[in-house]
Protein backbone atom coordinates (compact mmCIF):
# COMPACT_ATOMS: atom_id res chain seq x y z
CA UNK A 1 0.00 0.00 0.00
CA UNK A 2 1.58 3.21 -1.17
CA UNK A 3 1.94 5.76 1.58
CA UNK A 4 4.23 8.21 -0.17
CA UNK A 5 4.40 9.84 -3.60
CA UNK A 6 7.29 9.74 -6.00
CA UNK A 7 9.09 13.08 -6.06
CA UNK A 8 8.00 15.12 -9.06
CA UNK A 9 10.59 15.52 -11.78
CA UNK A 10 12.35 18.76 -12.63
CA UNK A 11 14.41 19.43 -15.72
CA UNK A 12 18.06 18.43 -15.65
CA UNK A 13 18.75 21.90 -17.08
CA UNK A 14 21.65 23.09 -19.22
CA UNK A 15 24.30 22.20 -16.66
CA UNK A 16 23.50 18.50 -16.23
CA UNK A 17 27.07 17.81 -17.36
CA UNK A 18 28.49 19.13 -14.09
CA UNK A 19 26.78 16.45 -12.08
CA UNK A 20 26.72 13.51 -14.44
CA UNK A 21 29.60 13.93 -16.88
CA UNK A 22 31.83 16.51 -15.19
CA UNK A 23 34.71 16.27 -17.64
CA UNK A 24 32.30 17.44 -20.36
CA UNK A 25 31.48 20.52 -18.28
CA UNK A 26 35.16 21.39 -18.08
CA UNK A 27 35.80 19.96 -14.61
CA UNK A 28 39.00 18.25 -15.60
CA UNK A 29 40.22 15.88 -12.94
CA UNK A 30 36.88 15.59 -11.11
CA UNK A 31 36.32 11.98 -9.97
CA UNK A 32 39.81 11.22 -11.29
CA UNK A 33 38.71 12.22 -14.77
CA UNK A 34 36.38 9.25 -15.22
CA UNK A 35 32.77 9.99 -16.14
CA UNK A 36 30.46 7.17 -15.07
CA UNK A 37 29.06 5.19 -17.97
CA UNK A 38 31.67 6.40 -20.44
CA UNK A 39 33.00 2.87 -20.97
CA UNK A 40 30.56 -0.01 -21.34
CA UNK A 41 32.98 -2.70 -22.47
CA UNK A 42 35.30 -3.12 -19.52
CA UNK A 43 36.77 -6.52 -20.38
CA UNK A 44 36.70 -8.95 -23.27
CA UNK A 45 33.09 -10.09 -23.39
CA UNK A 46 31.77 -12.30 -26.13
CA UNK A 47 29.40 -10.71 -28.60
CA UNK A 48 29.28 -8.34 -31.51
CA UNK A 49 30.82 -4.96 -30.81
CA UNK A 50 29.01 -2.01 -32.27
CA UNK A 51 28.92 1.75 -32.21
CA UNK A 52 25.65 3.50 -31.58
CA UNK A 53 25.45 7.11 -32.78
CA UNK A 54 22.39 8.95 -31.48
CA UNK A 55 21.16 12.34 -32.58
CA UNK A 56 18.29 14.31 -31.08
CA UNK A 57 16.26 16.86 -33.03
CA UNK A 58 13.99 19.52 -31.58
CA UNK A 59 10.73 20.79 -33.08
CA UNK A 60 12.58 23.04 -35.51
CA UNK A 61 14.75 20.15 -36.68
CA UNK A 62 17.76 21.62 -34.88
CA UNK A 63 20.19 19.27 -33.17
CA UNK A 64 19.94 19.18 -29.39
CA UNK A 65 23.54 19.68 -28.30
CA UNK A 66 23.20 19.78 -24.52
CA UNK A 67 21.41 16.53 -23.70
CA UNK A 68 22.52 13.71 -21.45
CA UNK A 69 21.66 10.31 -22.87
CA UNK A 70 21.70 7.02 -21.01
CA UNK A 71 21.25 3.60 -22.51
CA UNK A 72 20.39 0.35 -20.73
CA UNK A 73 20.31 -2.87 -22.64
CA UNK A 74 20.40 -6.66 -22.57
CA UNK A 75 23.68 -8.38 -23.27
CA UNK A 76 24.39 -10.54 -26.31
CA UNK A 77 22.45 -13.39 -24.68
CA UNK A 78 19.33 -11.24 -24.34
CA UNK A 79 19.56 -11.08 -20.55
CA UNK A 80 20.59 -8.42 -18.08
CA UNK A 81 23.33 -10.62 -16.76
CA UNK A 82 25.41 -9.44 -15.11
CA UNK A 83 27.78 -10.03 -18.02
CA UNK A 84 31.50 -10.23 -17.32
CA UNK A 85 33.31 -7.33 -18.96
CA UNK A 86 30.15 -5.48 -19.92
CA UNK A 87 28.13 -2.93 -17.94
CA UNK A 88 24.80 -2.98 -19.88
CA UNK A 89 24.59 0.75 -19.05
CA UNK A 90 26.19 3.75 -20.69
CA UNK A 91 25.97 7.49 -20.41
CA UNK A 92 27.06 10.10 -22.96
CA UNK A 93 26.20 13.66 -23.92
CA UNK A 94 25.17 14.89 -27.32
CA UNK A 95 28.37 16.51 -28.47
CA UNK A 96 28.28 20.31 -28.34
CA UNK A 97 29.94 20.47 -31.79
CA UNK A 98 28.29 17.73 -33.85
CA UNK A 99 25.27 16.75 -31.74
CA UNK A 100 26.13 13.05 -31.65
CA UNK A 101 26.04 10.89 -28.54
CA UNK A 102 28.35 8.00 -29.35
CA UNK A 103 28.28 4.69 -27.47
CA UNK A 104 30.61 1.77 -27.92
CA UNK A 105 28.67 -1.28 -26.86
CA UNK A 106 27.62 -4.84 -27.70
CA UNK A 107 24.71 -5.71 -29.89
CA UNK A 108 21.91 -6.90 -27.60
CA UNK A 109 20.49 -10.36 -28.09
CA UNK A 110 16.96 -11.66 -28.29
CA UNK A 111 15.12 -13.04 -25.27
CA UNK A 112 12.09 -15.28 -25.16
CA UNK A 113 9.82 -12.28 -24.91
CA UNK A 114 11.62 -9.38 -26.56
CA UNK A 115 13.43 -8.55 -29.78
CA UNK A 116 16.93 -7.08 -29.44
CA UNK A 117 16.53 -3.53 -28.21
CA UNK A 118 18.17 -0.74 -26.26
CA UNK A 119 16.36 1.48 -23.78
CA UNK A 120 17.28 5.13 -24.33
CA UNK A 121 16.68 7.79 -21.68
CA UNK A 122 17.12 11.50 -22.38
CA UNK A 123 17.47 14.37 -19.92
CA UNK A 124 18.10 17.98 -20.96
CA UNK A 125 17.10 21.60 -20.64
CA UNK A 126 13.48 21.93 -21.75
CA UNK A 127 12.64 18.32 -20.89
CA UNK A 128 10.57 18.31 -17.72
CA UNK A 129 10.52 14.54 -17.20
CA UNK A 130 13.18 12.24 -18.63
CA UNK A 131 12.15 10.77 -21.98
CA UNK A 132 12.30 7.00 -22.41
CA UNK A 133 12.27 5.38 -25.82
CA UNK A 134 13.77 2.27 -27.40
CA UNK A 135 16.05 1.48 -30.28
CA UNK A 136 15.26 -1.53 -32.44
CA UNK A 137 17.42 -2.90 -35.23
CA UNK A 138 16.67 -2.80 -38.97
CA UNK A 139 18.24 -6.24 -39.48
CA UNK A 140 16.18 -8.03 -36.83
CA UNK A 141 12.68 -9.42 -36.72
CA UNK A 142 10.78 -6.94 -34.54
CA UNK A 143 7.16 -7.68 -35.38
CA UNK A 144 6.66 -10.10 -32.48
CA UNK A 145 8.07 -7.77 -29.86
CA UNK A 146 5.18 -6.57 -27.65
CA UNK A 147 6.57 -3.09 -27.07
CA UNK A 148 7.36 -2.63 -30.76
CA UNK A 149 3.86 -3.74 -31.66
CA UNK A 150 2.33 -1.37 -29.13
CA UNK A 151 3.72 1.58 -31.10
CA UNK A 152 1.69 0.57 -34.16
CA UNK A 153 2.34 2.66 -37.22
CA UNK A 154 4.81 4.83 -35.28
CA UNK A 155 7.11 1.91 -34.50
CA UNK A 156 9.42 2.83 -37.37
CA UNK A 157 10.52 5.88 -35.35
CA UNK A 158 12.37 3.46 -33.06
CA UNK A 159 14.33 1.65 -35.76
CA UNK A 160 17.94 2.67 -36.29
CA UNK A 161 19.85 2.59 -39.56
CA UNK A 162 22.92 0.52 -40.28
CA UNK A 163 26.20 2.35 -40.65
CA UNK A 164 29.83 1.36 -40.82
CA UNK A 165 30.65 -0.35 -37.52
CA UNK A 166 27.21 -0.06 -35.99
CA UNK A 167 23.99 1.88 -36.08
CA UNK A 168 22.78 5.44 -36.30
CA UNK A 169 19.51 6.65 -34.88
CA UNK A 170 17.79 10.03 -35.00
CA UNK A 171 15.35 10.85 -32.22
CA UNK A 172 12.76 13.52 -32.96
CA UNK A 173 11.30 15.29 -29.93
CA UNK A 174 8.50 16.81 -32.02
CA UNK A 175 7.13 17.03 -35.53
CA UNK A 176 5.89 14.68 -38.20
CA UNK A 177 8.47 12.04 -37.30
CA UNK A 178 8.10 12.43 -33.54
CA UNK A 179 9.71 9.44 -31.86
CA UNK A 180 7.62 7.16 -29.68
CA UNK A 181 8.22 7.81 -25.99
CA UNK A 182 7.01 5.61 -23.21
CA UNK A 183 5.43 5.90 -19.80
CA UNK A 184 6.76 2.76 -18.21
Amino acid sequence: MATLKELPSQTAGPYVHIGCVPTCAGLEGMYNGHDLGGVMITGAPEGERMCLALEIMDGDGELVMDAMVEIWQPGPDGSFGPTAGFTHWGRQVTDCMNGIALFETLKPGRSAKQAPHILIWIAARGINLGLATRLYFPDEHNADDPVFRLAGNRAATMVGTKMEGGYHHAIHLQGEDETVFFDV
Partner: protein
Amino acid sequence: MSEHLIARRDLDWHPQPLTPDYRSTTLRSPRHRRLHYTPTDTEMNGPTFGQHLIGPLDANLIVNYAQPGQEAIGPRIMIHGRLVDEDGRSIPRKLIEVWQANAGGRYRHKKDGYCAALDPNFGGCGRCLTDDNGYYAFQTIQPGPYPWPNGGNDWRPAHIHFSVFGDGFAQRLITQMYFEGDPHIRLCPIVHTIGCAKAIDSLVARLDMDATVPMDLRAYRFDIVLRGRGQTVFENKMEGL
Protein backbone atom coordinates in the same frame (compact mmCIF):
# COMPACT_ATOMS: atom_id res chain seq x y z
CA MET B 1 12.81 -12.82 -13.92
CA SER B 2 10.85 -10.07 -12.31
CA GLU B 3 7.60 -11.10 -10.70
CA HIS B 4 7.48 -7.90 -8.74
CA LEU B 5 5.46 -5.01 -10.00
CA ILE B 6 5.95 -1.31 -10.08
CA ALA B 7 3.36 1.32 -9.42
CA ARG B 8 2.31 3.26 -12.45
CA ARG B 9 3.75 6.75 -12.63
CA ASP B 10 1.25 9.52 -11.90
CA LEU B 11 1.92 11.75 -14.90
CA ASP B 12 -0.35 14.50 -13.56
CA TRP B 13 1.85 14.79 -10.47
CA HIS B 14 4.88 15.40 -12.69
CA PRO B 15 5.23 18.45 -14.93
CA GLN B 16 3.56 18.22 -18.30
CA PRO B 17 5.96 18.14 -21.26
CA LEU B 18 4.85 21.49 -22.67
CA THR B 19 4.94 24.28 -20.08
CA PRO B 20 5.23 27.51 -22.11
CA ASP B 21 6.23 29.70 -19.14
CA TYR B 22 9.43 27.66 -19.19
CA ARG B 23 10.28 28.54 -22.74
CA SER B 24 12.78 25.80 -23.47
CA THR B 25 9.96 23.26 -23.40
CA THR B 26 8.35 24.75 -26.50
CA LEU B 27 10.51 22.94 -29.02
CA ARG B 28 11.57 20.03 -26.83
CA SER B 29 8.23 18.64 -25.69
CA PRO B 30 6.75 15.65 -27.48
CA ARG B 31 3.16 16.23 -28.60
CA HIS B 32 2.04 12.61 -28.44
CA ARG B 33 1.14 11.23 -25.04
CA ARG B 34 3.61 8.68 -23.76
CA LEU B 35 2.58 5.12 -24.49
CA HIS B 36 2.19 2.92 -21.46
CA TYR B 37 3.06 -0.73 -21.08
CA THR B 38 3.67 -2.98 -18.14
CA PRO B 39 7.38 -2.87 -17.38
CA THR B 40 9.41 -5.67 -18.89
CA ASP B 41 12.68 -7.11 -17.66
CA THR B 42 14.34 -4.11 -19.27
CA GLU B 43 12.66 -1.56 -17.02
CA MET B 44 12.55 -3.74 -13.90
CA ASN B 45 16.31 -4.12 -13.93
CA GLY B 46 18.83 -1.33 -13.73
CA PRO B 47 22.51 -0.62 -13.35
CA THR B 48 24.24 -1.17 -10.04
CA PHE B 49 27.23 0.81 -8.84
CA GLY B 50 29.85 -0.45 -6.45
CA GLN B 51 31.42 1.45 -3.59
CA HIS B 52 34.80 1.11 -5.32
CA LEU B 53 33.61 3.70 -7.87
CA ILE B 54 33.11 6.34 -5.20
CA GLY B 55 36.00 8.35 -3.81
CA PRO B 56 36.19 9.24 -0.10
CA LEU B 57 35.52 12.95 -0.71
CA ASP B 58 32.99 12.64 -3.52
CA ALA B 59 30.08 13.55 -1.24
CA ASN B 60 31.81 16.57 0.27
CA LEU B 61 31.46 19.47 -2.18
CA ILE B 62 33.15 21.83 0.27
CA VAL B 63 36.48 20.16 -0.40
CA ASN B 64 36.17 17.79 -3.37
CA TYR B 65 37.37 20.38 -5.88
CA ALA B 66 39.38 22.55 -3.51
CA GLN B 67 43.11 22.99 -3.44
CA PRO B 68 44.77 21.10 -0.60
CA GLY B 69 44.05 22.84 2.69
CA GLN B 70 41.41 25.12 1.17
CA GLU B 71 37.62 25.06 1.09
CA ALA B 72 34.74 26.41 -0.97
CA ILE B 73 33.27 29.73 0.14
CA GLY B 74 29.67 29.97 1.32
CA PRO B 75 27.27 28.91 4.06
CA ARG B 76 28.29 25.42 5.16
CA ILE B 77 25.41 22.98 5.01
CA MET B 78 24.60 19.30 4.96
CA ILE B 79 21.80 17.81 2.87
CA HIS B 80 20.68 14.45 4.15
CA GLY B 81 17.79 12.04 4.11
CA ARG B 82 16.60 8.65 3.06
CA LEU B 83 16.02 7.15 -0.36
CA VAL B 84 12.76 5.22 -0.18
CA ASP B 85 10.06 3.98 -2.49
CA GLU B 86 6.40 4.96 -2.33
CA ASP B 87 5.78 2.08 0.05
CA GLY B 88 8.33 3.51 2.46
CA ARG B 89 10.93 0.83 1.82
CA SER B 90 14.55 1.87 2.00
CA ILE B 91 16.48 1.69 -1.26
CA PRO B 92 20.03 0.78 -0.24
CA ARG B 93 23.29 1.09 -2.20
CA LYS B 94 21.97 3.25 -5.02
CA LEU B 95 23.74 6.09 -6.76
CA ILE B 96 22.78 9.70 -6.06
CA GLU B 97 24.52 12.46 -8.00
CA VAL B 98 24.10 16.19 -7.29
CA TRP B 99 25.14 19.40 -8.98
CA GLN B 100 24.68 23.05 -8.11
CA ALA B 101 25.81 26.64 -8.51
CA ASN B 102 28.27 28.17 -6.08
CA ALA B 103 27.36 30.56 -3.26
CA GLY B 104 27.14 33.43 -5.74
CA GLY B 105 24.83 31.56 -8.09
CA ARG B 106 27.48 30.74 -10.70
CA TYR B 107 27.97 27.30 -12.23
CA ARG B 108 31.36 25.94 -13.13
CA HIS B 109 30.30 25.26 -16.71
CA LYS B 110 31.66 26.59 -19.96
CA LYS B 111 28.18 27.76 -20.93
CA ASP B 112 27.38 29.75 -17.78
CA GLY B 113 28.20 33.40 -18.41
CA TYR B 114 26.62 34.93 -15.29
CA CYS B 115 28.78 37.74 -13.92
CA ALA B 116 28.99 36.31 -10.38
CA ALA B 117 32.49 35.12 -9.58
CA LEU B 118 33.64 31.55 -9.86
CA ASP B 119 35.02 30.06 -6.68
CA PRO B 120 38.34 28.41 -7.54
CA ASN B 121 37.75 25.88 -4.77
CA PHE B 122 34.23 24.85 -5.76
CA GLY B 123 33.41 22.40 -8.56
CA GLY B 124 29.72 21.96 -7.85
CA CYS B 125 29.17 18.23 -8.11
CA GLY B 126 29.02 15.34 -5.68
CA ARG B 127 27.91 11.75 -5.53
CA CYS B 128 27.39 8.92 -3.10
CA LEU B 129 25.75 5.56 -2.68
CA THR B 130 22.94 5.23 -0.16
CA ASP B 131 23.92 3.07 2.80
CA ASP B 132 22.32 -0.20 3.84
CA ASN B 133 19.35 1.73 5.24
CA GLY B 134 18.91 3.97 2.21
CA TYR B 135 20.46 6.92 4.01
CA TYR B 136 22.59 9.52 2.23
CA ALA B 137 24.33 12.79 3.13
CA PHE B 138 26.20 15.49 1.24
CA GLN B 139 28.24 18.31 2.70
CA THR B 140 28.24 21.43 0.57
CA ILE B 141 27.79 25.18 0.56
CA GLN B 142 24.38 26.73 0.07
CA PRO B 143 24.01 27.73 -3.58
CA GLY B 144 22.89 31.22 -4.51
CA PRO B 145 19.89 32.19 -6.63
CA TYR B 146 20.73 33.35 -10.14
CA PRO B 147 19.10 35.00 -13.17
CA TRP B 148 18.44 33.03 -16.31
CA PRO B 149 17.33 33.89 -19.83
CA ASN B 150 13.66 32.98 -20.12
CA GLY B 151 12.24 36.17 -21.60
CA GLY B 152 11.78 38.21 -18.45
CA ASN B 153 13.34 38.96 -15.10
CA ASP B 154 13.53 35.33 -14.05
CA TRP B 155 15.63 34.13 -11.13
CA ARG B 156 16.00 30.55 -10.03
CA PRO B 157 15.52 29.84 -6.35
CA ALA B 158 18.57 28.36 -4.70
CA HIS B 159 18.50 24.69 -5.66
CA ILE B 160 20.48 21.49 -5.94
CA HIS B 161 19.95 19.08 -8.82
CA PHE B 162 19.54 15.41 -7.91
CA SER B 163 19.98 12.42 -10.22
CA VAL B 164 18.79 9.20 -8.64
CA PHE B 165 18.80 5.50 -9.52
CA GLY B 166 16.49 2.90 -8.04
CA ASP B 167 16.41 -0.86 -8.34
CA GLY B 168 14.93 -0.76 -11.83
CA PHE B 169 15.40 1.71 -14.64
CA ALA B 170 11.68 2.53 -14.40
CA GLN B 171 12.50 4.36 -11.16
CA ARG B 172 15.14 6.59 -12.74
CA LEU B 173 14.57 10.22 -11.76
CA ILE B 174 16.17 13.63 -12.06
CA THR B 175 14.77 16.47 -9.99
CA GLN B 176 15.72 19.57 -8.00
CA MET B 177 15.74 20.31 -4.30
CA TYR B 178 14.79 23.74 -2.93
CA PHE B 179 15.30 25.40 0.44
CA GLU B 180 12.58 26.11 2.96
CA GLY B 181 11.59 29.76 3.01
CA ASP B 182 13.05 30.80 -0.36
CA PRO B 183 10.76 33.52 -1.81
CA HIS B 184 11.84 32.63 -5.35
CA ILE B 185 10.10 29.25 -5.17
CA ARG B 186 6.70 30.83 -5.74
CA LEU B 187 8.02 32.95 -8.64
CA CYS B 188 9.97 30.37 -10.61
CA PRO B 189 8.59 29.12 -13.96
CA ILE B 190 10.58 25.89 -13.69
CA VAL B 191 9.21 25.12 -10.21
CA HIS B 192 5.72 25.84 -11.53
CA THR B 193 5.99 23.39 -14.38
CA ILE B 194 4.65 21.23 -11.53
CA GLY B 195 0.95 21.91 -11.19
CA CYS B 196 0.31 20.58 -7.70
CA ALA B 197 1.35 22.61 -4.64
CA LYS B 198 1.80 19.47 -2.58
CA ALA B 199 4.13 18.02 -5.20
CA ILE B 200 6.20 21.21 -5.17
CA ASP B 201 6.34 21.10 -1.39
CA SER B 202 7.88 17.62 -1.53
CA LEU B 203 10.93 19.17 -3.23
CA VAL B 204 11.52 21.67 -0.43
CA ALA B 205 14.17 20.64 2.09
CA ARG B 206 13.57 21.56 5.74
CA LEU B 207 16.07 23.04 8.14
CA ASP B 208 16.93 20.21 10.51
CA MET B 209 18.31 21.56 13.77
CA ASP B 210 18.60 18.06 15.24
CA ALA B 211 21.23 17.16 12.66
CA THR B 212 22.81 20.61 12.59
CA VAL B 213 26.37 20.48 13.91
CA PRO B 214 27.01 23.30 16.42
CA MET B 215 29.62 25.80 15.29
CA ASP B 216 30.09 23.86 12.02
CA LEU B 217 27.21 23.41 9.56
CA ARG B 218 23.45 23.58 9.28
CA ALA B 219 21.55 20.50 8.15
CA TYR B 220 18.66 20.30 5.69
CA ARG B 221 16.51 17.21 5.49
CA PHE B 222 15.47 15.96 2.06
CA ASP B 223 13.93 12.50 1.70
CA ILE B 224 13.85 11.14 -1.83
CA VAL B 225 10.92 9.02 -2.91
CA LEU B 226 10.98 6.83 -6.01
CA ARG B 227 8.16 4.80 -7.50
CA GLY B 228 6.82 1.96 -5.40
CA ARG B 229 6.01 -1.58 -6.28
CA GLY B 230 2.27 -1.30 -6.80
CA GLN B 231 -0.52 -3.09 -5.06
CA THR B 232 0.72 -6.63 -5.25
CA VAL B 233 4.00 -7.14 -3.54
CA PHE B 234 6.28 -10.11 -4.02
CA GLU B 235 9.34 -10.16 -1.84
CA ASN B 236 12.26 -10.90 -4.08
CA LYS B 237 15.86 -11.70 -3.60
CA MET B 238 18.33 -9.07 -4.72
CA GLU B 239 18.89 -9.12 -8.43
CA GLY B 240 21.96 -8.18 -10.36
CA LEU B 241 25.33 -7.74 -8.81
